[in-house]
């Protein structure tokens, strides 16, 4: 004969089970909603990034991303267009920075900076400085990398001036250190004192673009010995700090929302590819696997970076069998 208490407990247990089931279902629905929201947000974020038609040359093993910082004035609006006005470069666009990120199949990421003034195609029909190939569009950059340097890529992302400004602002700014007051009139950079400076997006852009900095030493403006006319060091410094500070989904979402429309991507670069690119970039910057292609930079009015034997050595690990270009 069943115990009366037992008969009374059964409904209670059933009620408890129902409650748990409902709670589980609610949690599941909530999780689903979150996942859906994140997916929708990601889709919207990616959709906000315009695409460019590129037929990538392909890199073989792993994935190679070509990251370009465009100097397009035409893509600027409002005050920015006036701020960065340059009669010599009012039209078209050139790459101020040419970065190559490669993720091996094993997930190891390396970042290579190629000086934009690297002189390629010498002796051929189309000698030019690499970064200026962007005048012909992203495809022309891909073709030049493959045809002139032997480097193939799988994806391309082109960041506008404003994109870097927004990215840094979304990250809360970056910090740099100078040995003295520093200026670069061409880049519109002015840091009035020595020491640590917290830069907002516009200042960070000027810091990255600076090729002719002068430091005030003993009352005289002098070119610092460690100036990097290739812009690589400052670019890596700024990108590295921004990546560090974009450490939560919220800040990442905010940064992508702001900078997204200023980043053009090849039409094959979707959400997964962008996530892999972001992770690879962060990994390379954090691990210090960042290098610059050595060149011999001229002191001429129009700077030109001539290749050396070390240029070839630096490019060799990034070369692709399908691309037969060589310096």
């Amino acid at each position, binding site marked *: 004969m069943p115990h009366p208490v037992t008969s009374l407990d059964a409904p209670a247990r059933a009620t408890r089970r129902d409650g748990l089931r409902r709670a589980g279902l609610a949690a599941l629905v909530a999780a689903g909603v979150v996942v859906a929201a994140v997916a929708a947000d990601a889709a919207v974020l990616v959709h906000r990034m315009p695409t460019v038609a590129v037929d990538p040359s392909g890199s073989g093993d792993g994935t190679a991303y070509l990251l370009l910082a465009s100097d397009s004035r035409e893509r600027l609006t409002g005050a920015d267009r006036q701020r960065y006005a340059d009669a*010599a470069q009012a039209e078209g666009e050139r790459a101020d920075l040419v970065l190559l990120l490669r993720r091996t199949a094993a997930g190891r990421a390396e970042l290579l900076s190629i000086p934009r003034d690297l002189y390629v195609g010498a002796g051929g029909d189309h000698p030019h*400085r690499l970064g200026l190939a962007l005048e012909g569009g992203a495809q022309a950059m891909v073709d030049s990398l493959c045809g002139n340097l032997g480097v193939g890529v799988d994806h391309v992302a082109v960041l506008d001036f404003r994109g870097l400004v927004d990215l840094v602002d979304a990250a809360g700014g970056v910090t740099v250190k100078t040995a003295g007051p520093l200026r670069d009139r061409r880049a519109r950079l002015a840091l009035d004192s020595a020491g640590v400076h917290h830069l907002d997006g516009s200042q960070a852009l000027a810091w990255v673009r600076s090729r002719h900095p002068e430091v005030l030493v003993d009352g005289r403006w002098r070119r610092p010995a460690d100036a990097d006319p290739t812009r690589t060091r400052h670019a890596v410094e700024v990108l590295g700090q921004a990546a560090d500070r974009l450490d939560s989904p919220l800040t990442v979402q905010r940064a992508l929302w702001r900078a997204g429309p200023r980043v053009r991507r090849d039409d094959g670069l979707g959400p997964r590819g962008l996530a892999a690119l972001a992770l690879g970039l962060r990994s390379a910057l954090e691990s210090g696997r960042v290098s610059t292609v050595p060149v011999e930079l001229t002191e001429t*009015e129009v700077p030109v970076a001539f290749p050396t034997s070390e240029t070839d050595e630096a490019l060799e690990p990034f070369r692709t069998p399908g691309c037969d270009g060589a310096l």
Partner: protein
Amino acid sequence: MLSSRARATSLAALLAVGGLGALATPAHAAEGRATIATGTDDVWVGDKLDLSGTCSSGTTAVITIEQEEGVVALGSANVTGGAFKATVDLKKAYFGPATASVDCLAYGVEKPVAHATTDFFIDDEDWPFEELEVAISQQKVALGGTLTVSATCPEGSDVAAILAGNEKADEAFFEQEVTPASSGAVSARIKIAATDGVEPEVGDALAVVVCGDDDMPMPQLLGDKAAAGKLLADEEPMTAMALEEMFPTALGMAEFTITPAVAAPSAPTAPGTGTATAPAAAPSSTRAASAAPQLAYTGSEPAPLAAIALAMIAAGGVAIRRARRA
């Protein structure tokens, strides 16, 4: 080592007959407003070469020195008042013809706004080959006649090639691979007749003897088969064969004149055998001059046989440089 006089003579002859122009051809602008000229006619491997010219104001002049193997030097200069002066280092250059070009670059413009080139010749104090004394049986030979060419290859040569052709022809009408005797002596009797469709013509001609060592094939010396393959592919098969199979260690040439064929009252000399022996076929100039041309010759495409020899020298120069570097 050749005397400087002999070298100069030899080189001048090569260039002249090779149709390669003077030591420094006049500069010309291909487009835009640019010119370029070398500062001297005597350009040597390892030297600094001064160049000057014009570019549009506000541009930078980028100088490229190119030889057959590719770019051997780069340089740049600011343009002041529409003119530039630049100096490039020829330490990576090698013996042979070269082209200097200027591209005038504007700051924010990808394509050069102007371009000009000039050709010149780079000499090398270390003459890459021993010069051979090449002897010929007579200075003048009639079409259909024969000529004996002989020379003595340097010690260590185990292969040689003897070629003959008109000065302005790009193919030889006679070519033969010869194994040097133990003394190094090589010789060949050359029939002044068509071979493989190449017709000799009345006029100036050259006999070239190249000695080599087939233990050191060119690709091996170059250390880069792809580069060697390209180099060879650019040449006529005959030259390619010679370069592929041996490393030239010595080179020499002799000039002779082909005169019109002698009228043959009796049975004509059998053509086409490179070793035909007909002493009478080496006529005197008087006889040749008095004879009307009898053989039909259509005339080959005018181009330099000597350019072949020059290419061999240049290629040898490359090989030597590379071998030394290695």
